[in-house]
């Protein structure tokens, strides 16, 4: 089987996972007494049915693309980063602090880059905390990243009830961003969308075309072999968690500077968790994260319409995510074993051993 055939089979598997998830949801809806037909057609209309719907899909996909890239990078290295949610939130928080408190009067040429950089740095810091805890104290990043998510949620709450609250003081939200802090946009399509797509290409390049990327993949495929080759899995984990955090932090900055124009609680409806589904459906392939993010973005955009028009709760999106994760991850394992050959089998097992 050549590489092209394998790619095609991967695509077919991903589509099958999506189909299975949607079919399961339709069945669940029917069993619970909702009419699945109108629900699914509202889902389709709300995500693809008009130019406004398409725009909503792309806007929802952008944070999923960035967080999905961060998660995919980490999972590739055997680093279980469940913390994209917290990294995104702290990124949004730092971006807002710069835009509405620290550099409010700076010109756009200074302010906007500062806002975006603050977001990336904030996310980086949160990821690096988990990386440092693992490297120096042996704390599993699975636990630390999850706990940091909860800390981040409360940090945002603290900020919008306290130091970053709007001048009017009426609601728990930040002041609106000054115009110079907003991402340039055509209609609602902000610059962050293009940057996110470029970063997907850059991440692909980093992973497959650079020495660092080679080390990252080596650690993910066979950590013990990598250690013998002089690569430190702890340092790679720290680096990857920082980088993944920065990508998620950027997603947070783009949300506040490109979509909402201010910070409030619940600014992320769980993008960081959806990111796990996005990364796995893409088989941890940075370029494939683009269509995967578009699918889950469409699902979120459509779920809103489904709730409004068909009265079906938007929580079905989590069901689709869960099933898509299970089906695509299970395929990956089965394929790894079947592809046979000593090397492929050992690699598949090594990937699992890093868990």
């Amino acid at each position: 089987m050549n590489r092209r055939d394998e790619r095609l089979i991967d695509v077919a598997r991903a589509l099958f996972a999506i189909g299975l998830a949607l079919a399961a949801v339709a069945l669940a809806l029917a069993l619970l007494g909702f009419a699945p037909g109108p629900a699914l057609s509202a889902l389709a209309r709300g995500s693809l049915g008009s130019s406004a719907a398409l725009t909503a899909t792309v806007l929802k996909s952008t944070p999923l693309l960035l967080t999905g890239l961060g998660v995919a990078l980490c999972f590739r290295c055997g680093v279980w980063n469940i913390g994209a949610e917290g990294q995104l939130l702290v990124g949004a928080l730092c971006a807002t602090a710069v835009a509405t408190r620290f550099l409010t009067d700076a010109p756009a040429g200074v302010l906007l880059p500062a806002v975006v950089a603050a977001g990336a740095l904030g996310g980086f810091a949160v990821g690096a905390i988990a990386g440092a805890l693992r490297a120096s104290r042996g704390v599993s990043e699975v636990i630390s990243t999850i706990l940091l998510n909860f800390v981040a949620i409360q940090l945002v709450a603290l900020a919008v009830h306290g130091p970053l609250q709007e001048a009017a003081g009426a609601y728990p939200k930040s002041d609106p961003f000054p115009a110079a802090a907003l991402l340039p946009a055509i209609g609602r399509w902000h610059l962050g969308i293009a940057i996110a797509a470029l970063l997907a290409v850059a991440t692909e390049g980093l992973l497959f075309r650079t020495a660092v990327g080679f080390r990252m993949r080596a650690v993910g495929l066979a950590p013990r072999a990598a250690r013998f080759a002089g690569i430190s899995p702890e340092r790679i984990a720290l680096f990857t968690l920082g980088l993944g955090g920065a990508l998620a932090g950027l997603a947070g900055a783009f949300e506040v500077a490109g979509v909402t124009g201010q910070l409030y609680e619940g600014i992320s409806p769980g993008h960081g968790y959806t990111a796990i589904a996005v990364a796995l459906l893409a088989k941890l392939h940075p370029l494939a994260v683009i269509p995967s993010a578009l699918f889950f973005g469409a699902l979120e955009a459509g779920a809103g319409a489904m709730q409004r028009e068909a009265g079906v709760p938007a929580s079905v999106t989590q069901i689709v995510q869960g099933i898509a994760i299970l089906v695509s991850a299970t395929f990956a394992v089965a394929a790894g074993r079947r592809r046979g050959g000593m090397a492929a089998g050992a690699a598949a097992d090594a990937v699992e051993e890093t868990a």
Partner: protein
Amino acid sequence: MEALLEAAVRLAAPLLLAALGELIVERAGVVNIGVEGTMLTGAFVGFAAAVASDSAGLGVAAAAFAGCAVGALFAFFAIARGTDQIVVGMAVNLLAVGATGLAARALYAGATPSGPTLSSAALPFASDLPFVGPALFAHTPFVYAAFGLALVVGFALARTRAGLRLRAVGEVARAADAEGVSVARVRVSAIVLGSGLAGIAGAALSLAQSDTFTEGMTAGRGFIALAVVIFGRWSSSGVVLAALFFGLANALQFRAQAQGFDIPYPLFLMFPYVVTLTVLAFVAAHARAPADLGTPYHRER
């Protein structure tokens, strides 16, 4: 002081139940981060069954059963299919949030009623003891069950044949296999049993700590239970102490809040997570996890 101790013990119970379940699972060499979702499922199913049957006791049984079912789902993918444990756990969490949210809307259409609860039962004589009596011996059955089960689990792990097998599978799966122990069977049983406890832990939230189900009501307690197991260094006595520690932190949080200290509310909510992270930073490096924790076992190798 007495009230604080009482609250600490009460709030520790759901954490302890879930953590004991996870302890069993992890001693068998499996990490199940789906505890959060399993608890949430238990909270919902327990509540729904209690409302439907007007019996909190039946609710608890249903919650335990639901927990076992979620565990069986986890085991199917993580053990039978060999899918990564962390990934399956995360999927379980997402599925649980989605499914309980959807089912709650379908059943109660946004107006969730209050249901029956298991009321506190003061133990005769013991609850008359000065100071500790009311604090320790006037609780809901969940509290007695949690601490009683800690004894049972501790004894079973250390002193029974099944416990020995479970630990062998968690420490050196291949050696256990060579000794004729079925690694998969032991792990699946541990997961189903442990998840049943997580289901009951969920019921402790919807049938004792409150009288209703709210979406996402576990609010991260399942994840804290994971930390409790690490903090408790994978022993049942350690897990009891760790759960009490978190119960106390939780009780202090409510106390400080009620006394109206001028501290922002989010700081209180952040407190248990920051405490957990800090504790892990000091404990994790020294704690010794089961050697084969998180390592899938493939017989054909």
